[in-house]
């Protein structure tokens, strides 16, 4: 219901007194109106800008934030006002909606910001007044299109393929995006070259070459060097056929591919050759065959795969189909009218070239397009008058739909430019996002490395915790809680993928044994890790999550050989790990764990334990965590 209706409701209820004499039954009890009828002024403070309004004004729309009790959540007792931390400029429009009952869309605002404000205040955008609704809808549609383009660009086809794609998918991708692999690029350029060769051959064929000796006439080169041209044609057609068959094989949906425009062009380009091969050499059909050769010129359309501008032009013409249709229709109308008029105007004169109305079509077309060949000219006065009217109107009729087509082309072209720009920007943006994400992940890992986990000596913790905000503290604490809950730890992508690789290479058994030996050596109790088989199974679980750097794997081997208990490193976290390990072993209740490596280590494979103190911090980390990796907590759940 509209706003004002709320104000009229008491009146309508009062008017119900008029029904009372007619009523057959007693009236029901009216609802108890708890709220006081007196009105008061409310103060609404939006980011410092104070608005005042009657309470009744806001109550007009009880299903919005300001009209319902939801606003009590924002009530500030001290200042006796409702405080909203939102855009005060936008709030002006929102409040006007309550006052006037019409929501207006401010044209200078971003459509998304406006939508968000509306969503916050619980106002449905559908009630935007008619004056602003069209603009709002246009902007919203434009924004959505742009976002759709963004998502399309983000899932762009030049993203890397999933590793388990079939050869068919890879082939298709190579055809569609030649930039993805060198082979595809080579193929792309080779086909382009052959298209050009074929087109040039077609053209040169018809140029008159010097006649062979003994003949007077000039022969076209096609007949003089028939064999050479035939060989070239064969080669081109072979390449095209091969390409077409490859595409057909690789296409994910063969029917759809066969129906697509490019495939039709391909077929039309190579058909004449095959038909020519098949057809016998008699005179009757060779005339038709010659016309078929005309279709060879369609090979030039194959270039549209290679040129984006050509594709845009084709797309524009397709999207302007209605305007083009209108142009054609109006031209046809005009041609018929003027041809008729000119024919009858020129009918009387002797030797006039306007022999029939269809013959006058030619004159009309030539005049309307301002070509003016002069092969047909009117001689009578009436004919000349109508001829001039014809040429003037021709200019007008052609000039009218052209700007529409031009603007369409411009819009599509710019859209395309924007898509390309967006794609380039997207790469940069994704890289930045990835770095930021890695930063936070690394921050947490660094935090743990620096001993922020809370169970160590105080002097090291004081140093490490100095540069973190309260937010980071709480965030890290949260992540730590999650780790404790699942009894897994966070690690980074590099080491995780390396684990996957090393696992596939088959380090499993050696590691398990080395680890078991390490375990045993470390803890002096075989009871910690009772059953090897079960542990191996758990190890498979653990391996998929255990992070190993390549260097540390090799160290494992060396460890395996050494089978010594390597003294724990000086990092306090290491101590904690070992302690934890002991504790856990005592409990006999293990869960597989991931040991984290804080930063992607600069792996130097040939470092042996124990490291020299001169090694820079990062490598020390590597060492330490490599070691902790050895003492990974394995368990059977």
């Amino acid at each position, binding site marked *: 219901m509209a706003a004002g209706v709320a104000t*009229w409701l*008491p009146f309508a209820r009062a008017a119900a007194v008029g029904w009372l004499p007619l009523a057959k039954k007693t*009236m029901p009890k*009216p609802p108890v109106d708890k709220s006081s009828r*007196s009105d008061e002024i409310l103060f609404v403070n939006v980011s410092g800008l104070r608005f005042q309004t009657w309470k*009744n004004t806001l109550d007009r729309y009880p299903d919005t934030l300001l009209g319902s009790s939801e606003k009590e959540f924002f009530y500030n007792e001290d200042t006796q006002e409702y405080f909203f931390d939102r855009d005060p400029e936008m709030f002006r429009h929102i409040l006007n909606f309550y006052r006037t009952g019409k929501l207006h869309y401010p044209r200078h605002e971003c459509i998304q910001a406006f939508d968000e404000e509306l969503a916050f205040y619980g106002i449905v955008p559908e009630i935007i007044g008619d004056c602003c609704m069209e603009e709002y809808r246009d902007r919203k549609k434009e924004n959505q299109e742009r976002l759709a383009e963004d998502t399309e660009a983000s899932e762009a086809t030049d993203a890397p393929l999933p590793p388990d794609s079939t050869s068919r998918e890879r082939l298709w991708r190579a055809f569609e995006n030649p930039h993805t692999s060198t082979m595809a690029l080579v193929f792309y350029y080779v086909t382009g070259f052959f298209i050009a060769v074929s087109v040039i051959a077609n053209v040169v064929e018809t140029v008159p070459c010097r006649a062979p000796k003994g003949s007077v006439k000039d022969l076209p080169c096609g007949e003089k060097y028939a064999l050479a041209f035939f060989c070239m044609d064969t080669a081109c057609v072979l390449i095209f056929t091969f390409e077409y068959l490859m595409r057909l094989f690789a296409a994910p949906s063969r029917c759809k591919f066969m129906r697509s425009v490019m495939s039709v062009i391909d077929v039309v380009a190579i058909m004449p050759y095959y038909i020519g091969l098949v057809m016998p050499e008699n005179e009757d059909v060779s005339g038709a065959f010659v016309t078929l050769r005309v279709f060879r010129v369609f090979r030039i359309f194959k270039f549209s795969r290679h040129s984006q501008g050509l594709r845009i032009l084709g797309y524009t013409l397709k999207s302007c189909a209605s305007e083009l249709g209108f142009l054609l229709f109006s031209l046809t109308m005009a041609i018929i009218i003027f041809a008729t008029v000119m024919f009858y105007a020129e009918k009387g004169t002797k030797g006039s070239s306007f022999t029939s109305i269809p013959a006058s079509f030619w004159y009309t077309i030539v005049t309307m397009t301002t070509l003016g060949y002069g092969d047909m000219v009117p001689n009578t006065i009436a004919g000349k008058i109508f001829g001039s009217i014809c040429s003037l109107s021709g200019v007008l009729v052609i000039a009218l739909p052209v700007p529409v087509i031009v603007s369409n082309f411009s819009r599509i072209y710019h859209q395309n430019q924007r898509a390309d720009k967006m794609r380039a920007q997207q790469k940069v943006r994704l890289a930045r996002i990835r770095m930021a994400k890695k930063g936070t992940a690394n921050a947490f890992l660094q935090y743990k490395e620096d001993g922020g986990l809370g169970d160590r000596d105080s002097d090291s913790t004081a140093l490490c915790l100095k540069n973190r905000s309260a937010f980071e503290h709480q965030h890290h604490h949260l992540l730590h809680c999650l780790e404790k809950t699942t009894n897994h730890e966070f690690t980074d992508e590099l080491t995780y993928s390396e684990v996957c690789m090393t696992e596939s290479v088959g380090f499993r058994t050696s590691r398990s044994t080395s680890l078991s030996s390490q375990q045993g050596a470390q803890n002096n109790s075989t009871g910690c890790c009772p059953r090897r088989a079960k542990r191996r199974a758990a190890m498979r679980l653990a391996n998929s999550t255990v992070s190993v750097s390549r260097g540390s794997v090799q160290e494992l081997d060396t460890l395996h050989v050494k089978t010594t208990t390597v003294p724990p490193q000086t990092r306090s976290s290491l101590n904690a790990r070992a302690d934890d390990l002991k504790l856990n072993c005592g409990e006999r209740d293990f869960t597989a764990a991931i040991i984290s490596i804080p930063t992607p280590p600069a792996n130097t494979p040939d470092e042996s334990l124990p490291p020299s103190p001169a090694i820079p911090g990062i490598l020390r980390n590597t060492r330490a965590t490599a070691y902790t990796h050895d003492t990974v907590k394995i368990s059977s759940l």
Partner: protein
Amino acid sequence: MGAVVGTLTMQTKQRKPSRDRTDDELEMTMVSHRPEGLEQLEAQTNFSKQELQILYRGFKNECPSGVVNEETFKHIYAQFFPHGDASMYAHYLFNAFDTTNNGSIKFEDFVMGLSTLLRGTLREKLEWTFHLYDINRDGYINREEMTEIVRAIYDMMGKYTYPAIKGDVPQQHVDAFFQKMDKNKDGVVTLEEFIVACQEDEMMMRSMQLFENVM
């Protein structure tokens, strides 16, 4: 051909100015109306100053020009009864409020009507209702008028009711009304008959009291 199109467009241009002139005239006649002072209204009605303020603010917001014409009134009233067609009853209601009979309700009319209905004495309310039913203002309610009113009320119910409204239900209702109200059986109901009959009706008196605190 372009010349033909050109002459056509020129023709349409000439026709526009005359229409614009009538629009201008309409604009000038739409003058806003201001009510009498607050104290006067307070004296004339049974509302307090604050209540009048609240009422006027709502009224002015809906009708910035200060008057409600019948179309707007019908439109507003129809919003309360979306099931059926409230236009006829709204028409009669409009006439009941429009005491000056000039086709528009000013704020004074509005407030006086409300005052009678909500804060008036029993007799005032009954008189108001009588004036509502008496369409032609001749002091008598005859059968046709009553039938009109009853039919208008049933129209507001709409088509989908339970039990379904059959064709003769309004007529029966009118007959029942006349039976109750028309004491001397002369086919019309006068004001006195009406008031006496209503005061005798226990049910109605009870219902009247329920409407005390609408505002």
